[in-house]
Every structure is written in structure tokens, then in C-alpha cells.
């Protein structure tokens, strides 16, 4: 995968002396650094620009689920925004007032908030990820952030970290003391979709090689088929990726796999049409979902999920697969059960952590979760 290193780094003076900016200066020797009082809103996107700001909000957020569909109960460690992989379907394109890559330079504040929260809520398990508003690893070669976070979580008994990416920038994970508390995760898609809609992301081969590299170093793995996109011969497309995935890694290393059919805020459609004229994804059979987002008509989603879960169960019947933001009816029809029957989706995922990663801070359960 080709690295597209930022050529210009705009740093807010309040964070100019911090460790993140020091790493960037060391790892981006050819970039021009500018220090400003406050990074202003940019009207246009410039993929060569990286902004480093002082973040004044909460670093820990809840997964933006809605009451209409089952949510994973994941928590997001918010270290930056935007992405330059330019996937056609990406919601980040709709954040028009902050179009450039942005990192939060006050990392000490972030780690402080994280420590305090985990300590305050020590009686429960925390599944925390960084890949919601940016790709977890896209800038890692320059920030070295994983070298801070992975050892941090290694010492945290009640939390696991999921680093979710579409890159193969996992070099920094090598040799880290992770203590089995970090999950290296990849978003995967059918080859047809990857080629057309994810032009700057790593190839499937690169992602699977990276996954194998991590598994060999003792990391647990996760995979996310999200967004699943309908395209000609999608069954063979997604089937092939699942086959390649289970050939590449031992399924027992996989903590969970999520499935999510493409859904989007209605305003994203015109953005995709404008920025990705070749893309055909806005022309699927979408209806307005209960949360106001556009979703494939439910029968199509059921077809996707039934196909995928059957293949996954053939490879590993105990692997925790789950649906991202779906209701009882879709769960029942495609998976044969509802998360409600198993204590909720968040409980299912907590149990996957217990069963696969052997991290257990909850009361013992007798019923196996599949």
C-alpha cells in the first residue's frame, strides 16, 4: 500500500510542545510545519494537510447507536478525525466544516480521561476502539500512537482495545507488550467493491497478510464486513473473501466479526454522486430506515446476512458474528436468534472477549454463546 504522507502540518501552539508533534516532526522529515494560535475551519479539503489541534471535548464517546436497532455498546477513543483513503461510501465526507486530517495533540489529556474512566468503572469490561472518526492506523507510522495505546491497555485489566483499519500500517505493533488486550481489526469487502470504492486502501491480500502478521505476534483479530454492498455476483465476491480470510488466519484468533449492510445519511448520496461519479452504490434499493438513514430493503439485507453467517458458521461455529445496527426481525430471520435472548448484543461481545481473549471480569456464565 502506498503511503501518502502529509506534506504540511499545521499545529496549534498549545500542543506544539507535546509528544505527538515531536513524533510527527521525527517521522515526517520532509513536511512543512506551521504553528498557529488556532486552526481555522477550512472550506476545501487538502489531503496533503494534517492539522494538530487541542481537543476540548470528551475523548471517550459511546458508539452512536440508535434505539431502533441493536447496538454493540462499543466505546470510542476519539483521537482524531478524517481519513485520506477516500472510500466512496465514507460518512466522513459529509463533515464539511473539518475536511482535513486532524489529530488531537493533547494526548496526555486523552490518556488521563481514559485512565480515570476505566478506574471509575472498574467493575465492567470496556471494549474501546479508535476507528470511528478516522482510520485507527492510517497515521500510525508518523504518530506512533499505537506504541502508547497498546502498552497502556496491556496494563488495564478491564478493557480491550480494538484498532480498526483498512491499511497494512501495522509495523509499530511489532514487539509491543500487548498482554492479549489489543485486537487488530480490519474492515473487509468484496474485491469488486474494494477496487471500485476503496481506491487508496490496502488490497485484500495486504490486509490479510497484515492480519496474519499480527496473529503471529499474539494479537487477537477482528473483521468487519461493513459496509456490505450489493453488486453483480456479490455472493461469490463476499464468499471468496471469507474463504481467503479463513485460509489466512486461524478462526480461533478472531474475537468477533461484524456484518453491516451499507446505510447512509440521505445527504451522503449527493456527495457520493459529486465526488465519486463512477460509483454505483447510491443506486441500490434503499429505503428510509427507522433511524432516518437510508438502508437496503430488508429482504436484501437478510439475504446478505444469511449468506455470510452460513459461511462463517461453517468455518467456526463458535465465532461471535454480529449485525451492526439491525433490529430483532433481521437478526431472527438471518441468524435465527435475537441478541435479546442472550442478554443483549453488548453482553454477547463481552462474552466473546471472555471466551476468546480469556479476559473475564463478569460473573461466570453457564450458557455458551455462539
Amino acid at each position, binding site marked *: 500500500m502506498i503511503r501518502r504522507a502529509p506534506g504540511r502540518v499545521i499545529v496549534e501552539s498549545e500542543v506544539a510542545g507535546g509528544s505527538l508533534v515531536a513524533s510527527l516532526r521525527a517521522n515526517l522529515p520532509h513536511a512543512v510545519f506551521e504553528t498557529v494560535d488556532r486552526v481555522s475551519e477550512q472550506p476545501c479539503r487538502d489531503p496533503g494537510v494534517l492539522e494538530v489541534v487541542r481537543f476540548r471535548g470528551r475523548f471517550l464517546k459511546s458508539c452512536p447507536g440508535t434505539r431502533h436497532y441493536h447496538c454493540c455498546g462499543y466505546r470510542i477513543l476519539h483521537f482524531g478525525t478524517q481519513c485520506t483513503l477516500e472510500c466512496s461510501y465514507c460518512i466522513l465526507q459529509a463533515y464539511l466544516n473539518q475536511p482535513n486530517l486532524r489529530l488531537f495533540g493533547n494526548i496526555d489529556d486523552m490518556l488521563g480521561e481514559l485512565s480515570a474512566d476505566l478506574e471509575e468503572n472498574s467493575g465492567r469490561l470496556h471494549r474501546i476502539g479508535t476507528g470511528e472518526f478516522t482510520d485507527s492506523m492510517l497515521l500510525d507510522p508518523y504518530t506512533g500512537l499505537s506504541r502508547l495505546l497498546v502498552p497502556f491497555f496491556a496494563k488495564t485489566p478491564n478493557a480491550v482495545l480494538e484498532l480498526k483499519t483498512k491499511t497494512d500500517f501495522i509495523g509499530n505493533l511489532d514487539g509491543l507488550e500487548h498482554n492479549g488486550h489489543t485486537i487488530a481489526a480490519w474492515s473487509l469487502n468484496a474485491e469488486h467493491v474494494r477496487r471500485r470504492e476503496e481506491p487508496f486502501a490496502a488490497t485484500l491480500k495486504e490486509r490479510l497478510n497484515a492480519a496474519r502478521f499480527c496473529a503471529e505476534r499474539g494479537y487477537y483479530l477482528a473483521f468487519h464486513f461493513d459496509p456490505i454492498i450489493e453488486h453483480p455476483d456479490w455472493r461469490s465476491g463476499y464468499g471468496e473473501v471469507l474463504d481467503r480470510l479463513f485460509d489466512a488466519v486461524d478462526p480461533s484468533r478472531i474475537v468477533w466479526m461484524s456484518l453491516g449492510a451499507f446505510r447512509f445519511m440521505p445527504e451522503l448520496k449527493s456527495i457520493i454522486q459529486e465526488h465519486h461519479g463512477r460509483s*454505483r452504490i447510491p*443506486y441500490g*434499493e434503499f*429505503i428510509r430506515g427507522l433511524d432516518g438513514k437510508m438502508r437496503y430493503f430488508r*429482504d436484501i439485507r437478510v439475504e446478505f446476512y444469511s449468506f455470510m453467517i452460513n459461511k462463517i458458521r461453517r468455518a467456526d461455529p463458535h465465532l461471535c458474528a454480529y449485525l451492526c445496527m439491525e433490529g430483532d426481525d433481521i437478526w431472527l430471520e438471518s441468524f435465527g436468534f435475537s441478541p435479546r435472548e442472550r442478554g443483549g448484543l453488548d453482553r454477547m461481545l463481552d462474552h466473546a472477549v471472555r471466551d476468546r481473549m480469556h479476559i473475564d471480569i463478569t460473573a461466570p456464565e453457564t450458557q455458551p454463546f455462539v
Partner: protein
Amino acid sequence: MDCGFVPRDEIDLRDRTFEIRSYVESADIAGSLRRFGILVPPWVQRSGRGYIVADGFKRLDSSAASGEKAIFCRILSGTIPRRDVWLQRIETKLFGPGLNPAEKARIASVLIELFPSGEVPRQFFDRLRISPRREVLHAWAKLASFGPELLQVIASGDIAERAALELAEWDPESRSTALTVLAELRCSASIQVEIVERINEISLREETGRAEILHCAEAEAILSAGEMNHRQKTQMLRDHLRRLRFPRLREREHRFGEQLEALGLPGSLKILPPPSFEGNGWRLELAFTSAEDLRGGVDAVRTLLNSDGLDSLMAGVSPKTGGRTG
């Protein structure tokens, strides 16, 4: 700017550089000119030994036809740059009576030419009532390049602005076909846009020509049906396009309708699925006029609850096979 009588034969009426054609014939102007002559002087600009028209094409065409020898005009110096003449011309147009889409398209194409860097003054957008986004201006400018027949249809108001702008991106054959269909259907602006968008999206998804969608046997049968009025044709075409755009949803709706009918419910009892079958929000409606009526309705509900048909209806499967039909 000078004013004065300009000999008619020194004005080159063939030079239409500054024309913003309305494409709408106006009998009123001709009548007014007959009664009062030219009340507002046209603008002409010196060019070589004669003049070209900068504003007032209709008035000058009409006076030429009436055989006037000299016309009172405002005379622009030949040294005024073309851009400045255009800006003055557009300025007066924007304060005049409302512009039709063909005129707006012409102005947009001139503005793009005058301001190639994209810095078109904001006040023009506001007065033209178009979005200041450059791509929108380009779409308008593209409309100006349509042939006179199409511009006439657009200027007449038979085609809504938003539909016309969508059509600007189409290939000429498809555009011409769609304009003819829309002019015949005489439907509202929002329905025009819906039809155009549906055709466009079906075409992009199925990788088929847009014109082909309107030329398929079913669409042609609808459009040529002599027994239907334009409203009925519009509705039939919309249904047809919806079937093509959402085939599986449409199939499910159709199946639901058939299954519901097979249940043989009384007319006072209705089962309503959630919109687009999304989620679990099913509804049962029971209308009644008396206690007796209500008892009868509740009995019908009881019978329904004990039948296999209800589960099949909600699951969208055939009660016999257990699989999805259709």
C-alpha cells in the same frame, strides 16, 4: 452613454452577440410597438462603421419589420469592453421582469465565460435565484447549449427548472425523448424531477441507456394509450419506474397484497405493514359503527389469529412452501 437617432440600416441585426433570447413569442410586445412605437430606447454599440445591438432585440426586430428608418437608441462607445457591456446588460435584465429558464441559462453561460476563475459576483446568484455552487452554474450554462426546440420547451415552463437541470447531463437522444414525454405528461415539477431521477438511477445501475427505459414496450404502451388522460399516464409511468427502481420491494408489496387478499378479511379490518416493511411496527385497523359491528370485527380478528396465513403474511413467505415467493 449617448442617446440619439440611429439609422436603421446601420444596425446589424444579424449580430446576436448580446442576445438573451426568451424563446417565448409575445404578441403583447408587437401590439404595444404598433400602438406606441419604441418607448424604452434599445442599446446599440458602435462597431466599425455601424452598430450592433446590445439590448432590445425584439424592439429592433419589430421596428425593422415596420420599416422605420431611424430609431432612438442609447449608444455605447465601441471602446467599452465586451465584458462591461455584458455586465450592464445582465444587470438590467436582473431588475426586469422574471426570467424564464432559457434566459437564466444564457446568463449563466455568459457569467461563466466572463468570470472563468469562478468568482461570479454573489448578487447575480441571488437575483437569478440559483445556487452559488459552481457545478450548478455549469449545469445552467449547459442548458444554454441545447438546441432552440429544447430551449423553447424549457422556456415555456412545461419543464420544471430542476428537471431541466438534471436533463442537462444526459445524452442528446435521451434528453430529447424525456423532454417530449414530460411535455406530454404535464405533471408537477416534483413529479418531473422524480421521473427524471428514477430513469437516471435505473440507467446507471442497470448500465442501460436512458432513452431505452422510455422506449421499452411497457413505457411506450403507457405513453401511447389513447384511453388514458395525462394524469393517468403519469401515474402509470411512475408505477412502472418504481417497479424498475425498487424491484424487490415492489415484489414484496405485490406478494403482500395477494396474501392479504387471500386471507379474505372483512372490509372493516386492515393489516398495515411497517413502511417499506422496515422494523416491527405492524398495525391492525378495525373500523366499526356499532357494538355489534365491533363484535363481528373482533371475531374476524380471532379467526385471523388462528390461521397460518397471518404468520406467512408477516414473514412474506408462501404458507405452502415456507419460502419466499415471486
